[in-house]
C-alpha cells in the first residue's frame, strides 16, 4: 500500500495536485481568518461568484477564463470597498445584492454557453488532478503575496480585525488593509477556480477560520491553526478522492467540514465557557 502511494506520488499530475492542495489550503484558510473575524462570509460568496461569472464570460468570449474571473473579482472588490464604506446602505445588503447579481450573470452565461458546458461546470467544483504548470505558478504567486501581507502588516491587521472604526480613528491605515484584503480575496478566489472551483471554495473561505475560532485566543496561532486545517482538509480530501474515486473539490469541502466538526466537539474554549456558566449557576443556586 505504502509503495503504491509512493509510486503514485511520482506522477506529475499528482505532484501538481499535492502542491496545489498546500497552496489552495494555505491561501483560502488565511483569508478565512479575516472573513470569520470580520463576520463577512458574504464577501467570500460574492467573490467566488464573481470569479465564476467572470470565468463563464471568458469562455463565452473565448478569453482565458482565469483572466476574466480575476478581472471581474477585482472589479467587484473595487465596487464593494467604497459601497460598504457608505453609511446609508447596510454592507450585508450590498453583498446580498452583489452576490445574487453575479449568480444571475454566471447562470445567464451558462445558458448561452452551449458548446463547452462541461468545462464551465468544472469551474464550479474544480479539478485538482487536471492542473497545469501555469495554474500552480499563479497560485504560488498569489499565496506568497497573501502570506507576506499577513506577516508585514500583522499589527495593523489585528487592530482592524478588533474594530475597524477604532483602528481608523487612531491613525491605523484601515482602508489600506481593508481594500488590500478585498483585492487579495479576488486574487485568491480566481486563482483557485481550477483547484476547488468557484462554488465549493466558499467552504474553504469560512471553515478553517471557524475551526481556529474553536481552539485559540491567540491571533498568531489563529492564523497557523486556520492554515493547518485548510491544508489538512485539502490533502486529506485529495487522498479520499483518489482512494474512493470521488470528485476532488467535493471531497476537500467535506473534509474541511469534518475537521470543523471535530474542533467544535473538542473545543477547549467552549468547554471553558460551559464550566464558567455552570460554576456561575451553582454560585447562584447556593446563595
Amino acid at each position, binding site marked *: 500500500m505504502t509503495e503504491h502511494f509512493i509510486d503514485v506520488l511520482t506522477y506529475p499530475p499528482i505532484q501538481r495536485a499535492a502542491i496545489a492542495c498546500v497552496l489552495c489550503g494555505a491561501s483560502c484558510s488565511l483569508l478565512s481568518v479575516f472573513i470569520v*473575524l470580520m463576520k463577512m462570509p458574504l464577501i467570500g460568496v460574492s467573490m467566488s461568484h464573481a470569479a465564476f461569472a467572470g470565468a463563464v464570460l471568458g469562455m463565452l468570449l473565448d478569453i482565458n477564463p482565469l483572466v476574466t474571473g480575476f478581472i471581474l473579482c477585482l472589479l467587484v472588490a473595487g465596487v464593494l470597498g467604497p459601497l460598504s464604506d457608505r453609511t*446609508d446602505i447596510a454592507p450585508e445588503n450590498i453583498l446580498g445584492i452583489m452576490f445574487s447579481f453575479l449568480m444571475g450573470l454566471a447562470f445567464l452565461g451558462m445558458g448561452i454557453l452551449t458548446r463547452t458546458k462541461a468545462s464551465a461546470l468544472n469551474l464550479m467544483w474544480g479539478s485538482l488532478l487536471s492542473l497545469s504548470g501555469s495554474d500552480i505558478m499563479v497560485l504560488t504567486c498569489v499565496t506568497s503575496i497573501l502570506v507576506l501581507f499577513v506577516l*508585514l*502588516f500583522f*499589527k*495593523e491587521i*489585528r*487592530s482592524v*480585525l*478588533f*474594530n475597524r*472604526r*477604532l*483602528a*481608523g*480613528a*487612531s*491613525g*491605523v*491605515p484601515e482602508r489600506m488593509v481593508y481594500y488590500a484584503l478585498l483585492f487579495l480575496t479576488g486574487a485568491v478566489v480566481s486563482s483557485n477556480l481550477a483547484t476547488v472551483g468557484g462554488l465549493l471554495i466558499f467552504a474553504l473561505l469560512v471553515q478553517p477560520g471557524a475551526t*481556529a*475560532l*474553536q481552539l*485559540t*485566543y*491567540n*491571533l498568531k*496561532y*489563529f492564523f497557523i491553526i486556520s492554515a493547518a486545517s485548510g491544508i489538512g482538509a485539502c490533502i486529506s480530501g485529495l487522498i479520499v478522492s483518489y482512494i474512493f474515486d470521488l470528485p476532488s473539490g467535493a471531497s476537500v469541502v467535506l473534509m474541511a467540514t469534518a475537521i470543523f466538526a471535530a474542533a467544535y466537539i473538542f473545543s477547549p*474554549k467552549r468547554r471553558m*465557557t460551559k464550566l*464558567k456558566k455552570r460554576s456561575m449557576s451553582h454560585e447562584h443556586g447556593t446563595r
Partner: protein
Amino acid sequence: MNKHIIELNGINVRKTKELLLDNINLSVSPNEFVGIIGPNGAGKTTLLNVVAGFERFEGALSLFGHRESWRRSRETRLRIGYVPQLFQIDPAFPILASEAVMTGAIGRLGLFRSPGRQEREKTMQLMELMRVAHLADRPLGQLSGGERQKVSLARAILQQPDILLMDEPTANLDIAVQKEVLNLINEIHKRENLTILFVTHDFNMLPAAMRRTVLLNHGKKVFDGDIDTALSGETLSKLFQYPLETFERNGRRFVSYD
C-alpha cells in the same frame, strides 16, 4: 494665534433631506472638559463624529488651529482619541485585554515597526491606572462591560491624544461601575491634560471635572455654558419636553422626575 483647540463654525450635517446638525458653532479651549447633552436624536453622537472625522459635514471645522475636512491626516488622527459606547465582542474573539490596549499604540508606531518594551510597559502602567492590570492575559470578550470600558479608556490614552472624544462611555453599565469609570475619567483628565468632549444623556452620572455643558436638541445648540445653569429644572424640562426638577446634594445638582 487661535487659542481654541476645537472650533466649529456653522456646521451642518445632512442625511438625505434631514438636518442632523443645524448650524452648530462651538469653540473649545485646551484642557476644557465639555459635556454634550441632549435627548435621543439630538445630534450628540453626530457632533462627536464630525470632530472624530467619521462624518461628512458642511461648514468650517478647525482642529489645533488648522482647517480640517472630514478626511484626516494620520498626524491629526493620532492627536484625537476615541472611546466608544460599550460594544459587543464575540467571547471567542482572539484578542487579550493587553493586546486590545496595545492597539492604541499601532497608529503612532507606523508601518513596519513592532511594539517594543516601551509600549508594553506603558500598556501595563495604564492597565494598572485603570485597575485592570490583573486581567491583562484574559480574552477581552470574557471581561465584564465595566472592565471592557476600562480597557477602552487605557487604549485611548496609550494613543497619547490631545483631545479625547467619549461617546456615552458609561451607558449600559451598573451604577457602581458607572461611578468607578467616571472617577477614572476625572483622574485621566487631571493627569493627562486632555481636552475632553463627553457625550451623555444621563444628567445624574456626570464626571465632576465637567464644568461646561452644551445642550443639543433636534440638531441645534440650545445652551452652552456652566453646568449648574444647565441643570435647572426649567432648561431641562424645555429640552426634554417633560417636567423635570433638580435638587442639590453634597454640592452637586441632580435631576429627578415623576
